């Protein structure tokens, strides 16, 4: 059984077929890339997988169970977490609190327990605070825990978004252009980080990226979209030589 499987997945916006019969499988612990020219429908795929859009047709199965019709928060709880193309942090919350929001789903105490600060509230809050700081240590960001997220430099904001997604304990992590706006050194760091995350958290990663050096180095398999249709799939080497892919990118 595959971790994630989509069959004939498609969505229509008005008269526009934004995505057409997408077949995609991702197995445990794989790093898979989703590439294609601008407007090819890559982010649409993410929005379908996370329940932001409801597909017009087809199936999405996570570990064999259909996730169509589930709300975004339900899909996150059963194991798909994402980052966003334009960073969406909780800017006026501290770095630690950003992570704690994602850990909320694994905390149990009720609203009344919180209002009267019963022992359960204290205990769980201490635990979650410890866990959040441990998670920050992975990216050497434990010093920033009590800063406002808005005050972090750009690169650390990207990292925090990845950490926040990981805090919800996903089986599949979706990264939407993680290297956007990074310089070559930062991008190289990011490659290491992505491999490291896969090993440490035992997650599969699906990433959208335009930086070809990152895609070709990190991803084990690639899917290429153009005008909402899958035009190629396979190993980076195979994709590099694929004529359809070259044509789509160069426009001839």
């Amino acid at each position: 059984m595959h971790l994630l499987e989509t069959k004939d997945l498609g969505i229509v916006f008005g008269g526009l077929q934004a995505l057409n019969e997408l077949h995609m499988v991702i197995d445990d612990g794989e790093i898979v890339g989703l590439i294609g020219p601008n407007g090819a429908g890559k982010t649409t795929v993410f929005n379908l997988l996370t329940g932001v859009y409801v597909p017009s047709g087809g199936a999405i199965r996570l570990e064999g169970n259909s996730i169509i019709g589930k709300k975004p928060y339900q899909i996150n709880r059963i194991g798909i977490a994402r980052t966003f193309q334009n960073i969406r942090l909780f800017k006026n919350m501290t770095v630690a609190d950003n992570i704690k929001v994602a850990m909320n789903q694994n905390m149990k105490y009720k609203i009344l327990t919180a209002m009267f600060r019963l022992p359960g509230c204290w205990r769980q809050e201490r635990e979650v605070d410890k866990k959040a700081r441990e998670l920050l240590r992975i990216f050497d960001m434990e010093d920033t825990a009590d800063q406002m997220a808005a005050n972090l430099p750009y690169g650390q904001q990207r990292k925090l978004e990845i950490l926040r997604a990981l805090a919800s304990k996903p089986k599949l992590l979706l990264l939407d252009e993680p290297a956007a706006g990074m310089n070559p050194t930062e991008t190289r760091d990011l490659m290491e980080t992505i491999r490291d995350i896969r090993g440490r958290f035992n997650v599969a990663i699906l990433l959208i990226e335009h930086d070809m050096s990152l895609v070709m180095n990190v991803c084990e398999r690639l899917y290429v979209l153009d005008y909402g249709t899958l035009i190629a799939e396979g190993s980076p080497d195979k994709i590099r030589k694929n004529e359809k892919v070259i044509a789509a990118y160069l426009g001839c």
Partner: protein
Amino acid sequence: MGGTKKSIGVSYIINTTLVVLLFFVLLIFINTGVIGRYNTQVLTLVCINIILAVSLNLVTGVLGQLVLGHAGFMLVGAYASALFTKNIGLPLSISFPISLLLGGLLAALFGVVIGIPALRLRGDYLAIITLGFGEIIRVVSYNLEITNGAKALSGIKSLSNRQNPSPMFIYAFLIAVFIIVILFTFGRSRHGRAVISIREDEIASESMGINTIYYKLFVFVFAAFIAGVAGGIFAHNYGTIDPAKFDFNRSVEILIMVVLGGMGSITGSIISAGSLTILSEKLRDFSQYRMILYSVILIIVMLFRPSGLLGRYEISVPKILRYIKKRSSNKKVPPEAREE
């Protein structure tokens, strides 16, 4: 919940002592007549407005949803509790607390009915719907038999009288303190974080596993409940209520308190609700200029402190004490010496 266990414990003790001290000082002044009956009523009104402001702050400041009909919930609570105590025939000391609960629950019910359709959507629909609700409920109560229409519902008994001037104040003060405490602890729990994350970015919040509709609805209904309770105290504090007391201007007045104090800051709401209430009562002789004064204050604050007096920060005596302590200890040890 930043800070060590010990410092939190110390803060608890300091805050509790101060609140208890304030309560008994005011109580003694009221009972000995230093604070007259009129001023006691004003103090009670201060507590009522604080309750209203912190509850609206929960929705508008913490959750980030604009509400323009908070007085509507107050109206529901006021009429429900006044009619209950007038008609039930129990002694007021028993029926009054029950009536407050009843007023709150009825207001919460209205909150559910208008909250469900409005909060399932993203965006500012809640502002429009609550604006409509506030006007509709006012016009309806003008025309109903049971509310006595525009003739005003009068003869609502108060617990306070000439011999014993303090009970209404005690109720209002204790309820205000209780609500402030639970809103504060709520805001600093996992649930509070979830609510703040909705204000910051609803899409991200939902994709991080937060059931946004549930939290939005809970917060809105809870605020409606509190406003209903405040309405109940209000009705029994004045003895006479008519729908005009709960019009759109009243909603705006509460909103101004929240904005002025800083959206999201409970202590900010308390300070601005207290000072604006006292100010407007003391300026009763110039009541036609009151709104002008309000707008001038608001413009000045928005010019110099766009995020309100306190912004999103909370102010507290222990915090100030720590700050003073830190500054004085810094002075004692010059920075050069500390580095070595």
